[in-house]
């Protein structure tokens, strides 16, 4: 299953790209996806404690089970205003 991932704000600079695609097994959780990402983009691993995760337009946590068609976003704490 291929999951598109978007990095927002300075996470894109840390990753060196704004988007990527990660292949995971059926039934994989976001936690599994993150392990793949942190191997490919170690600079993001350093931000894991402050990383916010969304699937589509909803916040999710590491236990969320990914489905075909999901789009994941990773980003730092928000700063509107």
């Amino acid at each position, binding site marked *: 299953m291929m999951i598109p991932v978007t990095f*927002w704000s300075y996470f894109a600079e840390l990753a060196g790209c704004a988007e990527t695609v990660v292949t995971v097994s059926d039934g994989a959780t976001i936690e599994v996806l993150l392990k793949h990402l942190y191997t490919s983009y170690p600079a993001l691993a350093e931000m894991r404690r402050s990383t916010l995760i969304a699937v589509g*337009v909803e*916040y999710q946590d590491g236990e969320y089970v990914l489905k075909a068609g999901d789009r994941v*976003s990773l980003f730092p704490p928000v*700063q*509107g205003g």
Partner: protein
Amino acid sequence: MKRFLSITHDPIDEAGLLAARSMSAGMGAAVYFSGVVRAQEGSELIVAIDYSCFVPMAEHQFHRLFDQLEQRGSVESLRLIHRIGRVAVGEASLWIEVVSAHRGEAFSACQWVIDEMKRVVPIWKKPVLVTEKPVA
């Protein structure tokens, strides 16, 4: 509850927004807040802030906040405009107005929406630093 949300690159037309205000006869409070870009961010002098935004999620999260506010039943209308892109020092990046029957509800709702926005709405800012010191 009437609601208006705009996430825009355009400057905020505060005079136009005020002129377009609508309140029913039972409403006695209109509170608005204008968030303006300061010339200093932390210890750095800046000329502007670049705002970036995950727009579909930001709109969704704003409307979730508005839904929660609507459940209180005390707010007649809420209007919120957030700029994205480059916003120069002295310009407004955020404008919010709450209309309700009494001032306590209006102040409280305005403060609550801003606090929650800063917690859940995916907007980020990147200061644009002053690169040349002014001549003394």
